[in-house]
């Protein structure tokens, strides 16, 4: 893409009209202003696409297999581990990493921190796609995916934690779509439509906070249904929800740093001036927020161990593993974030963000898979399940990239700038 942009001064598309004054057509906007052959050429030239192709070449048949022959054909069909990677990663890890939307929404809209405005839309998009793909993972995992709407409309079990998750994720998805509609309207060339969204944006933001607090917490609370199955160090009947909520804060912030880092490095042609120039500053700001959240998290994790008097567990093998998770996944990135903020070392903050994101994923996998059934045996997911999980993540990556390439996420739509 970079090479093509160098050839053609019209590119990339940054507004409603071309340099010549005539408006880009929808087709041109979809094809990034390239001819079909040029578009395919840039697809071919990108080695990442070949990797994606390999993933899909195996993954798509596996997906068909899952829908034709049932879940048992691509997983271990375990009755002891009802939830595997699809939920362990796809739901329990994707959702906290997608807390970015409500966090930056709160920062910019609610606390009026306009200095984070250039990264707000990326955070919103990261949130929306994360949630959307959590639902996609769910649709692969649910035994009867065609009944997705049953908990909403057909048969309601309002006293169940999952009922909350279902309603809140569904509602929050709508909120996030509404929050991102302005970008879509700009791209469509219908900026006037934004007006109605703007009017309710504060309401949307507050709704986002409520819904996020509850469903991030609810994902943790789901494990309180298994007080005898999940290892006591990972389970805290009292504080589970707040652990999940708090780790979602640095998970979400970390993910925005990761995403913006990748975009800035590999899609620099797409980044607008405001985004490029403020990114270092914003990264350090997010890093600061993340380190505070991590510190809070560490304290409440400690409180949980003390509250349930689980000190002796720390001396066991599980305890060592637990301390490793906390040490590598939380303490290390927290220190790095703190040092980065103090020294103004943006690169360090970025490394820390990668570790923090890994740490949150690790925690969720530990909770859902590894420390679950700790008294039984360890289920290692079937390779097909792992491949399918990667395939869906690749799809997430493609959709993410597709949108960032086109919609004004990391740049300002020119018409808007006036």
């Amino acid at each position: 893409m970079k090479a093509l942009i160098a050839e053609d001064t019209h590119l990339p598309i940054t507004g409603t009209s071309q340099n010549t004054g005539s408006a880009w057509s929808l087709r041109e906007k979809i094809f990034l202003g390239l001819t079909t052959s040029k578009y395919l050429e840039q697809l071919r030239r990108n080695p990442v696409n070949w990797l994606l192709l390999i993933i899909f070449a195996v993954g798509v048949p596996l997906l068909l297999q899952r829908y034709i022959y049932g879940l048992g054909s691509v997983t271990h069909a375990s009755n002891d581990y009802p939830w595997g990677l699809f939920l362990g990663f796809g739901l329990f890890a994707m959702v906290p990493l997608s807390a970015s939307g409500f966090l930056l929404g709160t920062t910019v809209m609610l606390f009026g921190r306009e200095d984070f405005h250039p990264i707000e839309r990326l955070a919103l998009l990261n949130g929306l796609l994360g949630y959307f793909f959590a639902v996609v993972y769910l649709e692969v995992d649910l035994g009867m995916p065609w009944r997705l709407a049953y908990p909403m409309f057909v048969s309601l079990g309002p006293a169940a934690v999952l009922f909350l998750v279902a309603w809140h994720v569904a509602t929050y998805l709508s909120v996030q779509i509404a929050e991102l509609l302005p970008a879509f309207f700009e791209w469509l060339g219908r900026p006037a439509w934004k007006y109605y969204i703007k009017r309710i944006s504060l309401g949307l933001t507050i709704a986002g906070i409520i819904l996020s607090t509850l469903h991030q917490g609810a994902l943790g609370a789901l494990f309180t249904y298994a007080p005898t199955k999940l290892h006591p160090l990972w389970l805290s009947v009292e504080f589970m929800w707040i652990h999940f909520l708090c780790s979602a804060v640095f998970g979400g912030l970390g993910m925005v740093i990761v995403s913006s880092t990748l975009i800035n490095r590999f899609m620099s042609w797409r980044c607008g001036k405001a985004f490029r120039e403020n990114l270092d500053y914003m990264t350090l700001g997010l890093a600061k927020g993340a380190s505070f959240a991590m510190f809070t998290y560490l304290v409440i994790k400690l409180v949980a161990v003390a509250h349930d008097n689980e000190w002796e567990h720390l001396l066991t093998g599980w305890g060592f593993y637990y301390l490793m998770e906390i040490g590598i996944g939380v303490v290390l990135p927290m220190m790095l974030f703190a040092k980065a903020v103090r020294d103004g070392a943006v690169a360090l903050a970025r490394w820390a963000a990668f570790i923090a994101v890994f740490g949150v994923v690790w925690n969720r996998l530990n909770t859902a898979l590894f420390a679950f059934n700790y008294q039984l045996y360890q289920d290692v997911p079937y390779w097909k399940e792992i491949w399918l999980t990667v395939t869906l993540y690749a799809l997430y990556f493609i959709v993410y990239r597709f949108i960032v390439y086109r919609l004004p996420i990391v740049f300002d739509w020119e018409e808007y700038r006036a």
Partner: protein
Amino acid sequence: MLEKISRRSILKNGLAGTIGALLLRPKAGESHDIKKYPNSMGVLVDLTRCVGCRSCEAACNAEQKLPEPMQPFTDMEVFEETEHGRQRRTDETRYTVVNRYEVPGQDHPLFRKVQCNHCQEPACLSSCFVNAYTKTPEGAVIYNADVCVGCRTCMVACPFYIPTFKYSSAFSPQIMKCVFCYDTRLKFGKQPACVEACPQEALLFGQRDDLIKIGRRRIEENKDGYQDHIYGEYEAGGTSWMYLSSVPFEEVGFDTNIPHEPILDSVKNFLGIVPMVLTIWPALFAGFHLLATRKEQPRISDDKNGQEDAQ
């Protein structure tokens, strides 16, 4: 004007929050008071009597029209079967299994029958977000496949690892578990097929309250022969199926760490905060917003620019 807009949004939001609170608030209190039906039925399983003949397994298979296993029910080698180092468990082809335990110090093996314990306050039921489970007045925990979405939370929630999933089916999967022969027997006052088939009367069907009294009497009349505990009287809030054993329960495969409170109790911490967040958050964060942005140029002024741009 700008002030008004934000105030209106806040009001609107507050209203939405209240409605949301009313609509979405989980009925934590209500769900805890699952009726303990006074005349509900149960089964008392006496491990000292079971000889591992597998008649109950065969009867269950026939009654519930489950798939035929590879080995006949007269085959006792199944007791040697292990998977992941564990003995047989319920799965989509069997609602009940009998496992053999060689307990040190005992001159003969002991057998334990596994099936749904039909909890008084079932975790599967309270974790189900589509209300697929019902605790009937007769004591059975039954399941409605027509509304189930296959999320398998009930399997996570069940402390006894009982519900299983029909993973083999892509188009009509469902939870597979013992239903106390509800549709074919229990609701007509008849005992379940496995109980009827038991030659040793190791399974005794009756009103739960009576069974507890009988269990206590057996223990009292033979103090050396029984553990002084009826497993299931209190476990997980009490179960309709209960057990007597001559050896400590953990030595015959029972999980003795299961709390005596219903599983739902550990979830209530979270359920309790839900209405709080729904009602307090809107006002709290709207307040934060006003505090944080009062002196600044309100963001909403962008609207005008936006409109002008559009023209």
